[in-house]
């Protein structure tokens, strides 16, 4: 069997473009992995302040790692939520007069128990676990 010049050329072309594609894949493959951020250690607990200092009908925001939390006294109990609005992720604010949490972006409102009252939402606010320490401080986290 004889191999002609054009056969050889075609074979070398195939070889060249296949290796080129392989190199391109090898070079580009790490990029999506690079762009997706690695998991980082989360903040587990944070002291928010003295429970006795939080008056009924008031609330306080706090940083919880990269999250923002809100602790409020609804008259009977303390409630602690992630302040992230379940609609589009803006941070809700406590309205001391209406005693509800409202989102400035698209107008959602949540009750003092985190339940959606009106406006666009995707379920209730996320509740954060907390405990009162021996010295009377509110400690948020697991």
């Amino acid at each position, binding site marked *: 069997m004889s191999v002609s010049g054009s056969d050889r050329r075609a074979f070398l072309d195939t070889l060249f473009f296949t290796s080129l594609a392989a190199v391109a894949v090898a070079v580009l493959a790490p990029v999506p992995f690079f762009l997706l951020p690695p998991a980082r250690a989360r903040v587990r607990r944070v002291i928010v302040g003295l429970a006795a200092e939080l008056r009924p009908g008031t609330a306080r925001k706090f940083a919880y790692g*990269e999250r923002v939390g809100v602790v409020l006294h609804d008259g009977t109990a303390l409630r602690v939520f992630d*302040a992230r609005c379940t609609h589009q992720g803006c*941070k809700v604010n406590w309205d001391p007069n209406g005693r509800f949490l409202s989102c400035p972006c698209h107008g959602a409102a949540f009750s003092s128990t985190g339940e959606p009252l009106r406006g*666009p939402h995707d379920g209730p606010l996320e509740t954060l676990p907390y405990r009162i320490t021996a010295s009377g401080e509110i400690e948020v986290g697991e």
Partner: protein
Amino acid sequence: MRVGWIEDRTGARQWFRSVRARLSRPLPLKSAGITLGSVALFLLFLQFVSGALLTVYYVPSWSDAHDSVAHIVTEVRFGWLVRSVHVWSAHMTVAIVALHLMRVFVRGAYARPREATWWCGVLLGSLVAGAAFTGQALPMDEEATGGMAVAASFADSVGAGALVRGGPYVGQATLSRMFAAHVVFIPGSLLLLITLHLALVGRHRLQGAETMEGSSSAFPRRAALSCSGALAVLAVLAVAWPAGLGSEADPLGTAEHVKPMWIFLPIYQAVKGIPAWAAPLLLAIPAGFLILVPFLPWRRPVLAAGAVLLAAAVALGVLGAMA
């Protein structure tokens, strides 16, 4: 040194002549808005220059970004002007690109053989909108954090939230990504696609000019005139109404009454009334329509659909502005 020496080594004169010859081909100059693309290109050039200058002082840090922009506008000499030019030319670019797109749409100039030019233009328009959006986040004023949260939420609906946020929550990593997109990825893509867009325009010429022959310097003059007009408008806006800087974003909250740039007001208003998972459809439906348009042979229904989309966007935008 003789010009011939440079010519021998670079072919610059020959290249320049061929570009001039292309620009001097006769065009249907009576058609209104024929220089909108030229003006968009000119404004984007101003964006690149003013933006490059701003990177000298801007710091993409969650806690220092606002200070660095305040430093630019209050202390750096002519800093207020450079930022004002960047902000106002951004508004103008978005507006002119939108008008350019509408003109091409109404005239049906996206049809064969200019489909690729059209798709390239639609992509360019999306990149310009992306640049406007990401640029809005950089000063870390009260509107910035809300915008980043909403962008991440849109991305979440298609499973790409982490890609926008750079982590589980909106924070420094998100701002870094906005900065990288605004300063490197989007401008780089713009440069590549503008080159392609212009090459395609050169190949197919403008609609109505296919059979025109001869040579005329009317178009370059018209384009230069339009760009001068745009520059005059920009100068008045940038100097008379210097771009403001909102208060620094509260790290613990979203300020009351935050709103995005005017071009995003229709989406801002529409997301109030639909579930979060459906939000990306607000982008996908108009984008899909624009991409498919060259394949739709029915002229009148297509124009009607375009008019409906535009009317809906304007109505929602006005509602959003008043909300």
